[in-house]
């Protein structure tokens, strides 16, 4: 199978362009142009599922924004402010998501190529693994609380502080344990060895990578010409 994913430097470049574009533009509504570019990148990488979920979310945001602007819809729970914020930041979300869902091996390969200190690489990889792990942990805690009949609404409402303790303490303990396990396994795999860090996953820049770098650069400049700089 041909590799369709872009290499890490390109994704970083795209993220930088998107952040620059979103934060400097004078016309917030025009950020849909950058979002379009980001969607094109996802399509090029054949990440259909990501494209679909984010696409639906984006369309919903656009619809909400349209209703707020032209039909003075008022929201009850969710402030209008956040609709625009999410709309505005969508290009950044898209490319950043693409970046952080890169397989960790490729990420660390790219980072060690530019001589990032090992603690920083380790930290970044831990951050990316954090959310799935915590989700599983929370599920486990909920299950064990359920087994002890501690999740009923009456129990939770009558003893909110105790409930907090029941959730927080096991979660913190697990966090510490996970940190220990991770560090043991990292050291066992040579995280502290002084030599140059190599990788199985390092790959050279290909034609498509250069192409996309150019597309993002031109796209951002065009975006500034059309939308104006603040």
């Amino acid at each position, binding site marked *: 199978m041909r590799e369709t994913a872009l290499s890490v430097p390109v994704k970083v470049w795209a993220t930088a362009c998107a952040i620059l574009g979103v934060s400097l533009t004078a016309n917030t509504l025009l950020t849909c142009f950058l979002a379009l570019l980001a969607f094109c990148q996802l399509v090029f990488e054949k990440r259909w599922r990501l494209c679909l979920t984010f696409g639906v979310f984006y369309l919903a945001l656009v619809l909400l924004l349209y209703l707020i602007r032209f039909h003075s819809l008022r929201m009850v729970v969710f402030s209008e402010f956040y609709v625009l914020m999410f709309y505005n930041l969508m290009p950044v979300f898209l490319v950043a998501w693409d970046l952080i869902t890169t397989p960790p091996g490729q990420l660390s390969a790219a980072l060690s190529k530019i001589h990032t200190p090992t603690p920083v690489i380790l930290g970044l990889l831990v951050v990316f693994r954090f959310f799935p792990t915590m989700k599983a942990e929370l599920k486990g805690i909920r299950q064990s609380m359920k087994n002890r009949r501690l999740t009923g609404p009456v129990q939770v409402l009558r003893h909110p502080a105790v409930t907090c303790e029941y959730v927080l303490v096991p979660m*913190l303990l697990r966090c510490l344990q996970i940190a220990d396990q991770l560090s043991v396994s*990292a050291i066992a795999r040579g995280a502290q060895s002084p030599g140059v860090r190599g990788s199985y996953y390092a790959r050279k820049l290909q034609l498509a990578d250069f192409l996309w770098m150019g597309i993002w650069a031109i796209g951002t400049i065009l975006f500034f010409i059309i939308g104006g700089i603040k």
Partner: protein
Amino acid sequence: MENAKKWSVKDVITLVLMTVLLIVIQLGLNMVCMVNDFVSMVLSVGISMLVCGPVYFLMVNRIRKRFVSLVYMTLLGLVFLMMGNWFLLPWFIVVGIPAEIILWKGITPNRLTVSWTLSSLLYNGVNLLPIWFFWDTYYSFAVASGMEQSYIDAYVQYYTAPGWVIFILIFTVLCGFLGSLIGRKLIQKHFKKAGVL
């Protein structure tokens, strides 16, 4: 400081893991508090300081190295930077420095309490800095989003009236202090016994 000053892999991983947990808790509570203007503007900082106190205590107690607070605050600032409030990154670095100075000569529960209480007080900069120094940027963004005037009015009302500002400051300091007391208690009750410290 009783043990070596060099950071090991274990310290780095613990620090990052706990910091991410802290940030997630803070942002999550913030989101939940959005339901009501009063809760979100007056109480939310205090509540998150209350809940995060124990986590912070555990983190510092576990690692027991210098610069833990500073790195935590810097990472927090980075998250705010990514969310578009660039001025909060330097601010959080500034917040981290007094905490480091307090803990410089060694980590004791009393010093930790002081440092967390002080951090709670300074954490209010998240809400107060925009209105004091960066109001134009913030306001234009808020208006451009078609945000209702009542929200902006409430924001101005709570953060410019001296009475409310003082109440908010006192409330957060109290919550931070309470959070650190709870942290001390939890550490004695659970974590010391479990042998993880």
